[in-house]
Protein backbone atom coordinates (compact mmCIF):
# COMPACT_ATOMS: atom_id res chain seq x y z
CA UNK A 1 0.00 0.00 0.00
CA UNK A 2 2.84 2.36 0.84
CA UNK A 3 4.41 1.70 -2.56
CA UNK A 4 1.17 2.66 -4.28
CA UNK A 5 0.98 5.84 -2.20
CA UNK A 6 4.55 6.69 -3.12
CA UNK A 7 3.63 6.47 -6.81
CA UNK A 8 0.52 8.61 -6.30
CA UNK A 9 2.52 11.25 -4.42
CA UNK A 10 5.26 11.21 -7.04
CA UNK A 11 2.78 11.64 -9.88
CA UNK A 12 1.06 14.51 -8.04
CA UNK A 13 4.40 16.25 -7.52
CA UNK A 14 5.29 15.67 -11.16
CA UNK A 15 2.07 17.20 -12.46
CA UNK A 16 2.36 20.05 -9.97
CA UNK A 17 5.88 20.88 -11.12
CA UNK A 18 4.83 20.75 -14.76
CA UNK A 19 1.89 23.08 -14.14
CA UNK A 20 3.89 25.51 -12.02
CA UNK A 21 6.46 25.88 -14.76
CA UNK A 22 3.83 27.03 -17.27
CA UNK A 23 3.13 30.67 -18.02
CA UNK A 24 -0.56 30.92 -17.32
CA UNK A 25 -1.28 32.07 -13.78
CA UNK A 26 -4.34 29.84 -13.47
CA UNK A 27 -2.31 26.75 -14.28
CA UNK A 28 0.27 27.79 -11.69
CA UNK A 29 -2.47 28.01 -9.06
CA UNK A 30 -3.78 24.55 -9.95
CA UNK A 31 -0.17 23.37 -9.70
CA UNK A 32 0.22 24.75 -6.17
CA UNK A 33 -3.02 23.02 -5.21
CA UNK A 34 -1.73 19.68 -6.45
CA UNK A 35 1.61 20.28 -4.75
CA UNK A 36 -0.03 20.73 -1.39
CA UNK A 37 -2.22 17.66 -1.97
CA UNK A 38 0.90 15.65 -2.61
CA UNK A 39 2.41 16.96 0.60
CA UNK A 40 -0.73 16.02 2.55
CA UNK A 41 -0.70 12.49 1.19
CA UNK A 42 2.95 12.32 2.16
CA UNK A 43 2.08 13.11 5.80
CA UNK A 44 -0.55 10.37 5.76
CA UNK A 45 1.86 7.82 4.35
CA UNK A 46 4.72 8.84 6.61
CA UNK A 47 2.57 8.47 9.70
CA UNK A 48 1.95 4.84 8.73
CA UNK A 49 -1.14 3.62 6.94
CA UNK A 50 -3.95 1.87 8.80
CA UNK A 51 -2.47 -0.94 10.88
CA UNK A 52 -4.99 -1.44 13.64
CA UNK A 53 -8.34 -0.53 15.05
CA UNK A 54 -9.79 2.95 15.24
CA UNK A 55 -7.97 4.94 17.92
CA UNK A 56 -10.69 4.79 20.56
CA UNK A 57 -9.31 3.75 23.92
CA UNK A 58 -11.19 1.20 26.03
CA UNK A 59 -11.53 -1.47 23.37
CA UNK A 60 -9.50 -4.65 23.61
CA UNK A 61 -7.57 -4.19 20.41
CA UNK A 62 -3.92 -5.09 20.19
CA UNK A 63 -2.91 -2.12 18.10
CA UNK A 64 -4.38 1.21 17.18
CA UNK A 65 -3.97 3.39 14.10
CA UNK A 66 -2.04 6.60 14.70
CA UNK A 67 -4.65 9.39 14.62
CA UNK A 68 -2.15 12.23 14.53
CA UNK A 69 -1.45 12.35 10.75
CA UNK A 70 -5.16 12.83 10.07
CA UNK A 71 -5.26 15.76 12.48
CA UNK A 72 -2.20 17.27 10.85
CA UNK A 73 -3.65 16.88 7.37
CA UNK A 74 -6.89 18.48 8.44
CA UNK A 75 -4.99 21.56 9.58
CA UNK A 76 -2.78 21.62 6.51
CA UNK A 77 -5.72 21.22 4.13
CA UNK A 78 -7.60 24.11 5.72
CA UNK A 79 -4.53 26.30 5.39
CA UNK A 80 -3.95 25.32 1.79
CA UNK A 81 -7.62 26.02 0.95
CA UNK A 82 -7.26 29.47 2.44
CA UNK A 83 -4.07 30.21 0.57
CA UNK A 84 -5.48 28.90 -2.72
CA UNK A 85 -8.61 31.03 -2.32
CA UNK A 86 -6.46 34.08 -1.66
CA UNK A 87 -4.26 33.24 -4.62
CA UNK A 88 -7.28 32.98 -6.94
CA UNK A 89 -8.60 36.36 -5.81
CA UNK A 90 -5.17 37.88 -6.21
CA UNK A 91 -4.85 36.42 -9.69
CA UNK A 92 -8.25 37.75 -10.71
CA UNK A 93 -7.49 41.22 -9.35
CA UNK A 94 -4.11 41.37 -11.01
CA UNK A 95 -5.68 40.19 -14.26
CA UNK A 96 -7.99 43.17 -14.05
CA UNK A 97 -5.23 45.57 -13.09
CA UNK A 98 -2.32 44.34 -15.20
CA UNK A 99 -4.42 43.16 -18.14
CA UNK A 100 -2.72 39.77 -18.41
CA UNK A 101 -2.54 36.42 -16.73
CA UNK A 102 0.71 35.56 -18.43
CA UNK A 103 3.58 35.63 -15.98
CA UNK A 104 5.92 36.67 -18.77
CA UNK A 105 4.08 39.98 -18.76
CA UNK A 106 4.72 40.42 -15.06
CA UNK A 107 8.43 40.71 -15.47
CA UNK A 108 10.13 43.97 -14.97
CA UNK A 109 11.96 45.94 -12.37
CA UNK A 110 10.68 48.27 -9.69
CA UNK A 111 11.17 51.32 -11.85
CA UNK A 112 8.55 50.33 -14.41
CA UNK A 113 5.64 52.05 -12.75
Amino acid at each position, binding site marked *: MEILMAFVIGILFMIATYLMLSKSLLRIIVGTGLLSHGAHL*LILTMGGLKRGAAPILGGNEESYTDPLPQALILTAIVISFGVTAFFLVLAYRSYQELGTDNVEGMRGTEKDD
Partner: protein
Amino acid sequence: MTNLIILPILIPLFTGVILIFLNKRITAQRVVATISSIGTIIAAWLIVQRVRIDGIQSLNVSSWDAPFGITLVSDMFSALLVLTTSIISFVCLIYSFKSIGEEREKYYFYAVFNFLLVGVNGAFTTGDIFNLFVFFEVMLMSSYVLLVLGGTKIQLRESIKYLLVNVISSALFVIAVAYLYSVVGTLNMAHISTRINEISVNGMPGILTVIAVLFLIVFGLKGAIFPLYFWMPGSYYAPPAPVLALFGALLTKVGVYSITRTYTLFFYHDMDTFGLLSILAILSIVFGVIGAIAYWDIKNIIIYNIIVAVGVILYGISVLNTASITGAVYYLIHDILIKAALFLLIGIVISITGTSNLRNISGLINRYPGLGWTFFIAALALAGIPPLSGFVGKLLIVQGGIEGESFIGGFITLMSSLLVLFSVMKIFINGFWGKDRTYRREEKAPVKQLLIAPVILVVISALYGIGSESILPYITQAADTLLDPNIYINAVLKE
Protein backbone atom coordinates in the same frame (compact mmCIF):
# COMPACT_ATOMS: atom_id res chain seq x y z
CA MET B 1 2.97 26.07 34.08
CA THR B 2 2.00 29.63 33.51
CA ASN B 3 -0.69 31.18 31.39
CA LEU B 4 1.36 34.36 31.03
CA ILE B 5 3.26 33.19 27.97
CA ILE B 6 0.16 32.86 25.80
CA LEU B 7 -0.73 36.54 26.30
CA PRO B 8 1.48 37.93 23.48
CA ILE B 9 -0.47 35.64 21.12
CA LEU B 10 -3.93 36.19 22.57
CA ILE B 11 -3.85 39.98 22.92
CA PRO B 12 -3.14 40.67 19.22
CA LEU B 13 -5.59 37.92 18.22
CA PHE B 14 -8.51 39.45 20.12
CA THR B 15 -7.50 42.94 19.06
CA GLY B 16 -7.46 41.86 15.44
CA VAL B 17 -10.96 40.39 15.77
CA ILE B 18 -12.28 43.53 17.45
CA LEU B 19 -10.66 45.76 14.83
CA ILE B 20 -12.46 43.95 12.01
CA PHE B 21 -15.75 45.27 13.41
CA LEU B 22 -14.42 48.81 13.76
CA ASN B 23 -13.20 49.04 10.16
CA LYS B 24 -14.93 52.33 9.28
CA ARG B 25 -14.08 54.11 12.53
CA ILE B 26 -10.44 55.04 12.17
CA THR B 27 -9.92 56.83 15.48
CA ALA B 28 -11.42 53.94 17.42
CA GLN B 29 -9.16 51.52 15.55
CA ARG B 30 -6.09 53.57 16.40
CA VAL B 31 -6.97 53.75 20.10
CA VAL B 32 -7.70 50.02 20.40
CA ALA B 33 -4.56 49.08 18.48
CA THR B 34 -2.34 51.34 20.60
CA ILE B 35 -3.76 50.08 23.90
CA SER B 36 -3.33 46.45 22.88
CA SER B 37 0.16 47.10 21.63
CA ILE B 38 1.17 48.61 24.98
CA GLY B 39 -0.49 45.66 26.70
CA THR B 40 1.57 43.25 24.62
CA ILE B 41 4.78 45.07 25.53
CA ILE B 42 3.92 44.83 29.23
CA ALA B 43 3.07 41.12 28.93
CA ALA B 44 6.29 40.43 27.03
CA TRP B 45 8.30 42.35 29.63
CA LEU B 46 6.71 40.31 32.44
CA ILE B 47 7.59 37.09 30.59
CA VAL B 48 11.22 38.15 30.24
CA GLN B 49 11.41 38.88 33.98
CA ARG B 50 9.68 35.61 34.84
CA VAL B 51 12.04 33.61 32.64
CA ARG B 52 15.00 35.49 34.13
CA ILE B 53 14.02 34.45 37.66
CA ASP B 54 12.30 31.07 37.26
CA GLY B 55 13.92 29.67 34.12
CA ILE B 56 12.11 28.38 31.05
CA GLN B 57 8.33 28.69 31.17
CA SER B 58 6.12 26.20 29.41
CA LEU B 59 2.38 25.87 28.99
CA ASN B 60 0.66 22.63 28.02
CA VAL B 61 -2.42 23.82 26.20
CA SER B 62 -5.63 22.22 27.56
CA SER B 63 -3.47 20.42 30.15
CA TRP B 64 -2.46 17.63 27.80
CA ASP B 65 0.94 16.58 29.09
CA ALA B 66 4.05 17.59 27.25
CA PRO B 67 4.84 15.11 24.48
CA PHE B 68 1.16 14.51 23.61
CA GLY B 69 -0.51 17.89 23.51
CA ILE B 70 0.56 21.19 22.07
CA THR B 71 3.13 22.96 24.19
CA LEU B 72 4.05 26.61 24.27
CA VAL B 73 7.57 27.27 25.53
CA SER B 74 9.20 30.55 26.43
CA ASP B 75 12.91 30.38 26.99
CA MET B 76 15.00 33.53 27.23
CA PHE B 77 15.75 33.56 23.50
CA SER B 78 12.13 33.53 22.46
CA ALA B 79 11.03 35.81 25.32
CA LEU B 80 13.53 38.48 24.26
CA LEU B 81 12.41 38.17 20.64
CA VAL B 82 8.75 38.49 21.65
CA LEU B 83 9.60 41.63 23.63
CA THR B 84 11.50 43.11 20.68
CA THR B 85 8.63 42.23 18.35
CA SER B 86 6.17 44.02 20.60
CA ILE B 87 8.33 47.13 20.71
CA ILE B 88 8.79 47.15 16.93
CA SER B 89 5.09 46.66 16.34
CA PHE B 90 4.21 49.52 18.68
CA VAL B 91 6.64 51.83 16.89
CA CYS B 92 5.45 50.82 13.42
CA LEU B 93 1.89 51.33 14.61
CA ILE B 94 2.41 54.94 15.71
CA TYR B 95 4.33 55.56 12.50
CA SER B 96 1.51 54.24 10.35
CA PHE B 97 -1.04 56.61 11.95
CA LYS B 98 0.52 59.44 9.97
CA SER B 99 1.67 57.65 6.87
CA ILE B 100 -0.44 54.66 5.89
CA GLY B 101 -3.41 56.60 4.51
CA GLU B 102 -7.13 56.46 5.20
CA GLU B 103 -7.93 54.00 2.42
CA ARG B 104 -5.74 51.27 3.86
CA GLU B 105 -6.92 51.97 7.41
CA LYS B 106 -10.53 51.40 6.28
CA TYR B 107 -9.56 48.16 4.60
CA TYR B 108 -8.50 46.33 7.75
CA PHE B 109 -4.86 47.43 7.89
CA TYR B 110 -4.70 47.40 11.69
CA ALA B 111 -6.58 44.12 11.97
CA VAL B 112 -4.21 42.35 9.60
CA PHE B 113 -1.27 44.02 11.32
CA ASN B 114 -2.37 42.37 14.58
CA PHE B 115 -2.85 38.98 12.92
CA LEU B 116 0.71 39.25 11.65
CA LEU B 117 1.84 39.70 15.25
CA VAL B 118 -0.13 36.61 16.28
CA GLY B 119 1.86 34.64 13.74
CA VAL B 120 5.24 36.10 14.67
CA ASN B 121 4.79 35.83 18.44
CA GLY B 122 3.33 32.36 18.04
CA ALA B 123 6.26 31.18 15.94
CA PHE B 124 8.64 32.46 18.60
CA THR B 125 6.72 30.86 21.46
CA THR B 126 5.59 27.49 20.18
CA GLY B 127 7.28 24.28 21.28
CA ASP B 128 5.66 22.04 18.68
CA ILE B 129 7.06 21.69 15.20
CA PHE B 130 3.71 21.42 13.45
CA ASN B 131 2.40 24.41 15.33
CA LEU B 132 5.42 26.28 14.06
CA PHE B 133 4.10 25.56 10.57
CA VAL B 134 0.63 26.77 11.54
CA PHE B 135 1.95 30.03 13.00
CA PHE B 136 4.15 30.49 9.94
CA GLU B 137 1.04 30.27 7.82
CA VAL B 138 -0.84 32.76 10.01
CA MET B 139 2.09 35.12 9.63
CA LEU B 140 2.42 34.54 5.87
CA MET B 141 -1.29 34.95 5.20
CA SER B 142 -1.25 38.33 6.96
CA SER B 143 1.90 39.29 5.14
CA TYR B 144 0.29 38.53 1.77
CA VAL B 145 -2.57 40.84 2.67
CA LEU B 146 -0.30 43.60 3.96
CA LEU B 147 1.85 43.32 0.85
CA VAL B 148 -1.05 43.65 -1.58
CA LEU B 149 -3.17 46.12 0.41
CA GLY B 150 -3.49 49.21 -1.74
CA GLY B 151 -3.55 47.28 -4.99
CA THR B 152 -1.06 49.22 -7.09
CA LYS B 153 0.41 47.45 -10.08
CA ILE B 154 3.82 46.82 -8.54
CA GLN B 155 2.21 45.44 -5.38
CA LEU B 156 0.03 42.98 -7.29
CA ARG B 157 2.91 41.85 -9.45
CA GLU B 158 5.31 41.31 -6.57
CA SER B 159 2.65 39.73 -4.33
CA ILE B 160 2.10 36.97 -6.87
CA LYS B 161 5.78 36.09 -6.86
CA TYR B 162 6.02 36.30 -3.07
CA LEU B 163 2.93 34.14 -2.64
CA LEU B 164 4.15 31.51 -5.09
CA VAL B 165 7.55 31.23 -3.45
CA ASN B 166 5.99 30.89 -0.03
CA VAL B 167 3.36 28.35 -1.11
CA ILE B 168 6.14 26.13 -2.42
CA SER B 169 8.22 26.58 0.70
CA SER B 170 5.18 25.77 2.87
CA ALA B 171 4.68 22.54 0.93
CA LEU B 172 8.34 21.72 1.58
CA PHE B 173 7.81 22.52 5.26
CA VAL B 174 4.94 20.01 5.44
CA ILE B 175 7.10 17.44 3.67
CA ALA B 176 9.98 18.02 6.08
CA VAL B 177 7.67 17.66 9.09
CA ALA B 178 6.23 14.46 7.58
CA TYR B 179 9.70 12.94 7.16
CA LEU B 180 10.70 14.00 10.65
CA TYR B 181 7.50 12.49 12.07
CA SER B 182 8.12 9.20 10.31
CA VAL B 183 11.64 9.01 11.76
CA VAL B 184 11.05 10.11 15.35
CA GLY B 185 7.28 9.68 15.77
CA THR B 186 6.66 12.86 17.73
CA LEU B 187 6.07 16.54 17.10
CA ASN B 188 7.03 18.09 20.42
CA MET B 189 10.36 19.83 19.86
CA ALA B 190 11.90 18.77 23.16
CA HIS B 191 10.78 15.18 22.59
CA ILE B 192 12.14 15.24 19.02
CA SER B 193 15.47 16.34 20.43
CA THR B 194 15.66 13.44 22.89
CA ARG B 195 14.60 10.93 20.21
CA ILE B 196 17.22 12.20 17.76
CA ASN B 197 19.77 12.05 20.53
CA GLU B 198 18.90 8.37 21.06
CA ILE B 199 19.14 7.58 17.35
CA SER B 200 22.39 9.46 16.79
CA VAL B 201 24.56 7.61 19.28
CA ASN B 202 26.64 6.23 16.42
CA GLY B 203 26.52 9.34 14.30
CA MET B 204 23.59 10.94 12.59
CA PRO B 205 21.68 8.73 10.13
CA GLY B 206 21.50 10.04 6.60
CA ILE B 207 17.75 10.64 6.65
CA LEU B 208 18.16 13.14 9.49
CA THR B 209 20.74 15.05 7.48
CA VAL B 210 18.23 15.19 4.62
CA ILE B 211 15.61 16.54 7.01
CA ALA B 212 18.07 19.08 8.38
CA VAL B 213 18.83 20.35 4.89
CA LEU B 214 15.10 20.44 4.04
CA PHE B 215 14.50 22.58 7.11
CA LEU B 216 17.39 24.79 6.08
CA ILE B 217 15.78 25.29 2.65
CA VAL B 218 12.36 26.04 4.13
CA PHE B 219 13.52 28.48 6.81
CA GLY B 220 16.25 29.83 4.55
CA LEU B 221 13.58 30.89 2.05
CA LYS B 222 11.80 32.80 4.80
CA GLY B 223 15.01 34.14 6.26
CA ALA B 224 16.56 35.05 2.90
CA ILE B 225 19.94 33.30 3.08
CA PHE B 226 22.30 33.10 0.14
CA PRO B 227 20.81 31.20 -2.77
CA LEU B 228 17.25 31.66 -1.53
CA TYR B 229 17.02 35.45 -1.20
CA PHE B 230 16.10 36.01 -4.86
CA TRP B 231 12.49 36.88 -4.11
CA MET B 232 13.24 39.45 -1.44
CA PRO B 233 14.54 42.57 -3.23
CA GLY B 234 11.48 42.62 -5.52
CA SER B 235 8.82 41.80 -2.95
CA TYR B 236 10.09 44.06 -0.19
CA TYR B 237 10.35 46.93 -2.62
CA ALA B 238 6.60 47.13 -3.13
CA PRO B 239 4.85 47.87 0.21
CA PRO B 240 4.76 51.22 2.08
CA ALA B 241 7.32 52.09 4.77
CA PRO B 242 5.71 50.79 8.00
CA VAL B 243 4.88 47.45 6.36
CA LEU B 244 8.36 47.28 4.89
CA ALA B 245 9.83 47.97 8.34
CA LEU B 246 7.76 45.16 9.86
CA PHE B 247 8.71 42.74 7.09
CA GLY B 248 12.38 43.66 6.98
CA ALA B 249 12.76 43.62 10.74
CA LEU B 250 10.58 40.68 11.70
CA LEU B 251 9.67 38.23 8.94
CA THR B 252 13.20 37.34 7.94
CA LYS B 253 14.13 37.06 11.62
CA VAL B 254 11.42 34.46 12.17
CA GLY B 255 13.25 32.34 9.59
CA VAL B 256 16.53 32.97 11.38
CA TYR B 257 14.93 32.09 14.73
CA SER B 258 13.58 28.82 13.31
CA ILE B 259 16.94 27.83 11.85
CA THR B 260 18.57 28.60 15.19
CA ARG B 261 15.96 26.69 17.15
CA THR B 262 15.90 23.57 14.99
CA TYR B 263 19.65 23.41 14.46
CA THR B 264 20.69 23.95 18.06
CA LEU B 265 17.92 21.74 19.44
CA PHE B 266 17.66 18.88 16.90
CA PHE B 267 20.70 18.66 14.68
CA TYR B 268 23.56 19.61 16.98
CA HIS B 269 25.13 16.18 16.43
CA ASP B 270 25.66 16.78 12.78
CA MET B 271 28.62 19.03 12.13
CA ASP B 272 28.32 18.55 8.34
CA THR B 273 25.07 20.48 8.16
CA PHE B 274 26.56 23.13 10.40
CA GLY B 275 29.39 23.38 7.87
CA LEU B 276 26.82 23.88 5.12
CA LEU B 277 25.05 26.51 7.21
CA SER B 278 28.33 28.30 7.80
CA ILE B 279 29.22 28.36 4.09
CA LEU B 280 25.77 29.66 3.13
CA ALA B 281 25.98 32.30 5.86
CA ILE B 282 29.33 33.55 4.64
CA LEU B 283 28.08 33.63 1.04
CA SER B 284 25.01 35.57 2.22
CA ILE B 285 27.30 38.17 3.75
CA VAL B 286 29.35 38.44 0.55
CA PHE B 287 26.41 38.63 -1.86
CA GLY B 288 24.42 40.92 0.42
CA VAL B 289 27.32 43.33 0.62
CA ILE B 290 27.76 43.28 -3.16
CA GLY B 291 24.09 44.14 -3.61
CA ALA B 292 24.21 46.85 -0.96
CA ILE B 293 27.14 48.55 -2.63
CA ALA B 294 25.88 48.16 -6.18
CA TYR B 295 22.47 49.81 -5.90
CA TRP B 296 21.69 53.51 -6.13
CA ASP B 297 18.28 53.07 -4.65
CA ILE B 298 17.96 53.64 -0.91
CA LYS B 299 15.33 50.95 -0.41
CA ASN B 300 17.41 48.36 -2.23
CA ILE B 301 20.56 49.26 -0.29
CA ILE B 302 18.88 48.60 3.04
CA ILE B 303 17.08 45.49 1.71
CA TYR B 304 20.42 43.97 0.75
CA ASN B 305 21.70 44.88 4.20
CA ILE B 306 19.05 42.51 5.61
CA ILE B 307 20.80 39.67 3.77
CA VAL B 308 24.15 40.71 5.25
CA ALA B 309 22.70 40.76 8.76
CA VAL B 310 21.06 37.34 8.32
CA GLY B 311 24.42 36.02 7.16
CA VAL B 312 26.24 37.47 10.16
CA ILE B 313 23.73 36.04 12.65
CA LEU B 314 23.70 32.58 11.07
CA TYR B 315 27.46 32.55 10.87
CA GLY B 316 27.49 33.14 14.62
CA ILE B 317 25.04 30.25 15.09
CA SER B 318 27.00 27.91 12.84
CA VAL B 319 30.24 28.33 14.80
CA LEU B 320 28.38 27.07 17.89
CA ASN B 321 30.52 28.21 20.78
CA THR B 322 29.63 30.41 23.74
CA ALA B 323 30.98 33.67 22.37
CA SER B 324 29.52 33.28 18.90
CA ILE B 325 26.04 32.24 20.08
CA THR B 326 25.91 35.09 22.61
CA GLY B 327 26.99 37.44 19.85
CA ALA B 328 24.39 36.07 17.46
CA VAL B 329 21.55 36.53 19.96
CA TYR B 330 22.75 40.03 20.77
CA TYR B 331 23.15 40.94 17.09
CA LEU B 332 19.74 39.49 16.18
CA ILE B 333 17.93 41.82 18.58
CA HIS B 334 20.09 44.77 17.57
CA ASP B 335 19.35 44.11 13.93
CA ILE B 336 15.58 43.95 14.42
CA LEU B 337 15.66 47.35 16.14
CA ILE B 338 17.97 49.10 13.73
CA LYS B 339 16.51 47.71 10.50
CA ALA B 340 13.06 48.88 11.51
CA ALA B 341 14.49 52.32 12.35
CA LEU B 342 16.27 52.57 8.99
CA PHE B 343 13.22 51.53 6.97
CA LEU B 344 11.06 54.04 8.82
CA LEU B 345 13.64 56.79 8.17
CA ILE B 346 13.71 55.85 4.51
CA GLY B 347 9.94 56.06 4.51
CA ILE B 348 10.26 59.67 5.69
CA VAL B 349 12.83 60.45 2.99
CA ILE B 350 10.50 59.01 0.36
CA SER B 351 7.52 60.92 1.71
CA ILE B 352 9.55 64.14 1.39
CA THR B 353 11.13 63.53 -1.99
CA GLY B 354 8.67 61.17 -3.67
CA THR B 355 11.50 59.00 -4.94
CA SER B 356 13.92 56.44 -3.60
CA ASN B 357 16.52 56.95 -6.30
CA LEU B 358 19.62 58.40 -4.71
CA ARG B 359 20.52 60.33 -7.84
CA ASN B 360 17.42 62.51 -7.49
CA ILE B 361 17.93 63.35 -3.83
CA SER B 362 20.39 65.73 -2.22
CA GLY B 363 20.84 68.24 0.55
CA LEU B 364 18.17 66.95 2.89
CA ILE B 365 20.14 67.73 6.03
CA ASN B 366 19.93 71.49 5.41
CA ARG B 367 16.23 71.60 6.05
CA TYR B 368 15.73 68.41 8.06
CA PRO B 369 18.66 68.26 10.50
CA GLY B 370 16.74 65.98 12.87
CA LEU B 371 16.12 63.43 10.14
CA GLY B 372 19.73 63.66 8.96
CA TRP B 373 21.30 63.09 12.35
CA THR B 374 18.94 60.27 13.28
CA PHE B 375 19.80 58.56 10.04
CA PHE B 376 23.49 59.12 10.69
CA ILE B 377 23.32 57.50 14.14
CA ALA B 378 21.23 54.61 12.79
CA ALA B 379 23.74 54.08 9.99
CA LEU B 380 26.65 54.00 12.44
CA ALA B 381 24.78 51.53 14.64
CA LEU B 382 24.09 49.32 11.62
CA ALA B 383 27.75 49.21 10.69
CA GLY B 384 28.74 48.48 14.29
CA ILE B 385 30.58 51.59 15.45
CA PRO B 386 31.10 51.54 19.24
CA PRO B 387 29.42 52.35 21.57
CA LEU B 388 26.28 51.73 19.52
CA SER B 389 24.48 48.45 19.56
CA GLY B 390 25.91 46.74 16.49
CA PHE B 391 29.41 46.68 17.93
CA VAL B 392 29.14 44.25 20.83
CA GLY B 393 27.29 41.59 18.86
CA LYS B 394 29.64 41.65 15.92
CA LEU B 395 32.69 41.67 18.20
CA LEU B 396 31.44 38.55 19.98
CA ILE B 397 30.64 36.81 16.70
CA VAL B 398 34.10 37.55 15.32
CA GLN B 399 35.69 36.48 18.60
CA GLY B 400 33.70 33.24 18.48
CA GLY B 401 34.74 32.69 14.86
CA ILE B 402 38.40 33.07 15.75
CA GLU B 403 38.05 30.83 18.80
CA GLY B 404 36.36 28.25 16.58
CA GLU B 405 39.29 28.55 14.17
CA SER B 406 37.07 29.68 11.35
CA PHE B 407 39.31 32.55 10.34
CA ILE B 408 37.90 33.17 6.87
CA GLY B 409 34.40 33.62 8.24
CA GLY B 410 35.59 35.90 11.00
CA PHE B 411 37.56 37.98 8.56
CA ILE B 412 34.66 38.30 6.12
CA THR B 413 32.30 39.28 8.94
CA LEU B 414 34.76 41.94 9.99
CA MET B 415 35.29 43.26 6.47
CA SER B 416 31.56 43.31 5.81
CA SER B 417 31.20 45.98 8.50
CA LEU B 418 33.37 48.34 6.49
CA LEU B 419 31.42 47.78 3.29
CA VAL B 420 28.09 48.07 5.10
CA LEU B 421 29.32 51.36 6.52
CA PHE B 422 30.25 52.40 2.99
CA SER B 423 26.82 51.50 1.63
CA VAL B 424 24.91 53.50 4.23
CA MET B 425 27.36 56.41 4.10
CA LYS B 426 26.66 56.50 0.37
CA ILE B 427 23.05 57.24 1.21
CA PHE B 428 24.12 59.85 3.74
CA ILE B 429 26.65 61.62 1.52
CA ASN B 430 24.57 61.63 -1.64
CA GLY B 431 21.16 62.11 -0.13
CA PHE B 432 21.75 64.40 2.82
CA TRP B 433 24.76 66.45 1.75
CA GLY B 434 25.10 68.50 -1.37
CA LYS B 435 22.92 71.05 -3.04
CA ASP B 436 19.57 71.92 -1.59
CA ARG B 437 16.66 70.88 -3.76
CA THR B 438 12.93 71.42 -3.65
CA TYR B 439 10.58 68.53 -4.10
CA ARG B 440 6.99 68.45 -5.26
CA ARG B 441 5.41 66.62 -2.36
CA GLU B 442 7.44 68.31 0.29
CA GLU B 443 4.82 70.46 2.01
CA LYS B 444 2.51 67.51 2.64
CA ALA B 445 5.02 65.36 4.52
CA PRO B 446 4.46 65.50 8.31
CA VAL B 447 8.15 64.96 9.01
CA LYS B 448 8.12 65.92 12.69
CA GLN B 449 5.36 63.48 13.65
CA LEU B 450 6.83 60.72 11.53
CA LEU B 451 10.25 61.16 13.07
CA ILE B 452 9.02 60.20 16.56
CA ALA B 453 8.92 56.48 15.73
CA PRO B 454 12.47 56.01 14.38
CA VAL B 455 13.87 58.27 17.11
CA ILE B 456 12.37 55.95 19.74
CA LEU B 457 14.05 52.98 18.05
CA VAL B 458 17.41 54.71 17.68
CA VAL B 459 17.34 55.71 21.36
CA ILE B 460 16.50 52.13 22.38
CA SER B 461 19.27 50.86 20.13
CA ALA B 462 21.78 53.32 21.61
CA LEU B 463 20.77 52.33 25.15
CA TYR B 464 21.03 48.68 24.12
CA GLY B 465 24.59 49.34 23.03
CA ILE B 466 25.69 51.53 25.93
CA GLY B 467 23.94 49.40 28.54
CA SER B 468 25.22 46.14 27.09
CA GLU B 469 26.83 45.33 30.45
CA SER B 470 23.47 45.15 32.21
CA ILE B 471 21.72 43.42 29.28
CA LEU B 472 24.36 40.75 28.85
CA PRO B 473 23.03 38.47 31.66
CA TYR B 474 19.77 38.10 29.72
CA ILE B 475 21.62 37.39 26.49
CA THR B 476 23.91 34.89 28.19
CA GLN B 477 20.93 33.07 29.63
CA ALA B 478 19.44 32.83 26.12
CA ALA B 479 22.74 31.56 24.72
CA ASP B 480 23.09 28.96 27.49
CA THR B 481 19.77 27.40 26.53
CA LEU B 482 20.79 27.30 22.89
CA LEU B 483 24.13 25.69 23.71
CA ASP B 484 22.75 23.06 26.04
CA PRO B 485 19.52 21.50 24.71
CA ASN B 486 19.07 19.58 27.95
CA ILE B 487 17.98 22.76 29.75
CA TYR B 488 15.16 23.12 27.23
CA ILE B 489 14.25 19.43 27.27
CA ASN B 490 14.13 19.20 31.06
CA ALA B 491 12.00 22.31 31.33
CA VAL B 492 9.44 21.01 28.84
CA LEU B 493 9.28 17.30 29.56
CA LYS B 494 9.82 17.10 33.32
CA GLU B 495 7.22 19.44 34.68
